[in-house]
């Protein structure tokens, strides 16, 4: 899988950045794959003595495994699948590889490939391992939340459409992983019903993410196709030139921002409910900490809204920042159909959560031996009890639609529907032009300012007398600098040290040989 996606990522291999992305991707995917294999190897081997097994899930399930080895297996699985899914700090490949790949591939990678990692993690932890230990869940929860926040913060400061979406994928994976951690916590605590709830939320969100992220990537692809531009600072006002793409992408943007009544909200709602149910846990410490963790999920969701306003507003609204955009090519029907069905998915998944949960219940039962019982009717989602919490998206939509129509026609009837078209108001500053709108960097600036600790910011501020002022601000991932660069440096240093061994003089080589011989002779006869 890694190899084929590597070749997909490097389709345009002429561009060095893309090659770099492909390399990074293959490297991390490979390291992750090795971890996974070790994990499966252990699962396979521990119970069986050591033989070349058949590596089927059945044999693995039968393996009797001690908690220590189970923990190793779990950590390997978390690392391996985490690397594939883009878990912080193994996420660095994702914002490079997703933008590098052609849009349909990005959509596929984001929508499907990241999910297979989640699938694997679930499979190993719940199905294949016979033991589950509660700190595993806490670890996954913590990492998940970190990933979610990290992802969304960086999404907010991106100025490239696809990079923004890639970072947003990291956020969503973080949320899913946090849900995974919570499921595990509930499960190890013997709270099967709650585990089922959380797991449902997890699966729901995973499906949702495939739809809205797919929609956004396809939409981005359409824009890219039409304009040849992915820097948001060169786009703008595309809703007017590409209405289909514009409106359909709006659905995706609203869904990913977690707004009711679309699907993103439904799964986040379920997840938040799960967070609020932790007081049932037997460990007092977790009891207290986990609702606070919910705050991070909430923060991530709110920031996601920020990101999406930025994304949609800068790309589709406002004035075109480049006069050529007026000629933006319209989309083909194939593209439209692709977007329509994804958008329809977003809407339907949002409106019929009860049905979705029904579909998911076999999976949930398989993994946790419990199903989520809906206390409400087909309209109303009430996972624990109707007393506890409920949400009815269809009613929600119906009321909003009714009020909108009522007010619209009411106002028209009672007053009038007259409209005059004028120039926008210039606030007393004449000669406004499209360049005066907020750029993508500008829109992200507050977030950058608040979360500057996580980033290394590179700025180029223009000279006041510059005739053609250019501003460039770039926010780099500090983890890259703090984690990966030191590792690379350490490897370089070590390799320099080792390199000294090989310094060309045959006498030295003979000395190595001699010393080895003497050493071994002393060693064996000691």
């Amino acid at each position, binding site marked *: 899988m890694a190899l084929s996606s590597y070749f997909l990522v490097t389709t345009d291999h002429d561009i060095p950045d893309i090659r770099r992305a492909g390399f990074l991707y293959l490297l991390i995917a490979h390291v992750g794959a090795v971890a996974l294999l070790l994990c499966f190897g252990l699962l396979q081997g521990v119970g069986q003595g050591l033989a070349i097994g058949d590596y089927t899930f059945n044999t693995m399930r039968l393996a009797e495994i001690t908690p220590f080895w189970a923990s190793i297996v779990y950590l390997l699985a978390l690392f391996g699948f985490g690397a594939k899914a883009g878990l912080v700090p193994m996420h660095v490949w994702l914002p490079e590889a997703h933008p590098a790949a052609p849009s349909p591939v990005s959509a596929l990678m984001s929508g499907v490939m990241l999910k297979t990692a989640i699938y694997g993690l679930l499979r190993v932890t719940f199905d294949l391992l016979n033991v589950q230990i509660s700190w595993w869940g806490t670890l996954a929860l913590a990492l998940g939340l970190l990933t979610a926040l990290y992802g969304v913060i960086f999404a907010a400061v991106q100025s490239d459409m696809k990079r923004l979406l890639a970072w947003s994928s990291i956020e969503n994976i973080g949320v899913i992983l946090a849900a995974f951690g919570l499921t595990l916590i509930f499960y190890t605590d013997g709270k099967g019903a709650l585990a089922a709830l959380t797991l449902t939320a997890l699966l729901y969100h995973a499906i949702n993410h495939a739809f809205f992220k797919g929609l956004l990537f396809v939409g981005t692809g359409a824009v890219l196709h039409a304009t040849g531009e992915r820097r948001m600072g060169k786009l703008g006002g595309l809703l007017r030139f590409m209405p289909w793409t514009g409106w359909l992408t709006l659905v995706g943007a609203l869904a990913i921002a977690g707004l009711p009544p679309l699907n993103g909200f439904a799964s986040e709602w379920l997840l938040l409910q799960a967070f609020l149910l932790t007081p049932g846990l037997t460990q007092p410490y977790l009891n207290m900490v986990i609702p606070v963790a919910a705050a991070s999920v909430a*923060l991530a969701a709110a920031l996601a809204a920020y990101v999406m306003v930025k994304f949609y507003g800068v790309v589709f609204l406002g004035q075109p920042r480049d006069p050529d955009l007026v000629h933006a090519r319209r989309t083909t029907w194939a593209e439209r159909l692709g977007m329509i069905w994804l958008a329809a998915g977003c809407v339907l998944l949002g409106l019929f959560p009860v049905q979705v949960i029904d579909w998911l219940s076999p999976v949930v039962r398989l993994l946790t031996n419990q199903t989520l019982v809906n206390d409400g009717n087909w309209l109303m989602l009430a996972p624990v009890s109707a007393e506890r919490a409920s949400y009815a998206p269809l009613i929600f939509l119906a009321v909003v639609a009714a009020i909108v129509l009522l007010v619209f026609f009411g106002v028209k009837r009672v007053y009038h529907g007259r409209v005059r078209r004028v120039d926008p108001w210039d*606030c007393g500053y004449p000669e406004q032009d499209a360049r005066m709108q907020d750029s993508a960097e500008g829109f992200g600036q507050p977030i950058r300012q608040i979360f500057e600790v996580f980033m290394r910011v590179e700025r180029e501020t223009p000279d006041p007398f510059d005739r053609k002022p250019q501003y460039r601000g770039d926010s780099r991932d500090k983890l890259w600098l703090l984690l990966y660069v030191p590792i690379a440096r350490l490897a370089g240093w070590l390799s320099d040290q080792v390199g000294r061994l090989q310094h060309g003089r045959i006498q030295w080589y003979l000395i190595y040989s001699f010393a080895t011989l003497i050493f071994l002779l002393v060693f064996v006869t000691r």
Partner: protein
Amino acid sequence: MSTGIVLQIAQTLLAILLAPLLMGWVNQCRAWLQGRSAPPLTQPYRMLRKLFHKDAVLAHDASRLFRFAPYIIFACMVLAAGIVPTIVNDLPFSPAADVIALVGIYALARVFLALAAMDIGTSFGTLGARREMLVSFLAEPALLMVFFTASLISQSTELPVIVQTLAHKEFAIYPSMAFAAVAFWMISVAENARIPVDNPTTHLELTMIHEAMILEYSARHLALIEWAVALKLFTYSALGIALFVPWGIAPRGDLGALPLALLALLVKMIVGGAALSLLEAISAKVRLFRAPEFLGTAFLLGVLGMLIHFLLEV
């Protein structure tokens, strides 16, 4: 059931009608406190009427999004008003959305407003949208924290159940709610574009947030937005009441308690509005980049409230 529906519609309509009044009252109080001669209490109604009568003025490039946003925002606020109990608790509509969904409703309205503000492509619109989202990304989780504290006490995220627990079960003092209350006040101030985060009367580009977003709106669109703003203030007040001083809200099916509930609402709103204007009058607007600090404090207070709940109340 049918009484329920009638009451539901009545309560929602009442909220829609009373909302500008609350706005007027706050403005009046503020004028008094600033030593100005106050506008009449009905000033907001007059303004709405005037705006509805005018011809809408739209920029050439305004899209449908721009034109429909006010309706959606207004509808969202009406929906919120239908969910938050003001005089009667546990109305048939309330299970459609719990507190988390309520936060979602506010978020939906806000996102539409922000998108609409960016639609024309003037520098002020985007500036306002950006600032609004900046304020909201902290306010929203803080609000959730406040709700979480309340729902941990009442074991539910349904507003009727929360109100029921707080108002109609035996009286208990919840220290966590004190923290939540302070946090909630700070959030309301921010969310309703009041001092010290925003100034509803300013049009200075350095300071304005909400006003910057609606600069391009006129006539009926502006009227709807203004009305929605009033409704937002009203629903926030009602939320505050429901969470922190719920006494007086009529339980379901108790029609006899209605007049008292209405009275209680009026009194609470009058006191609340006065308190809001007082606090506004004595505080100074903070710099924009202080706003995250302000809201961060609110967020922390919400989290603290929740922790205190675990320490003292479990």
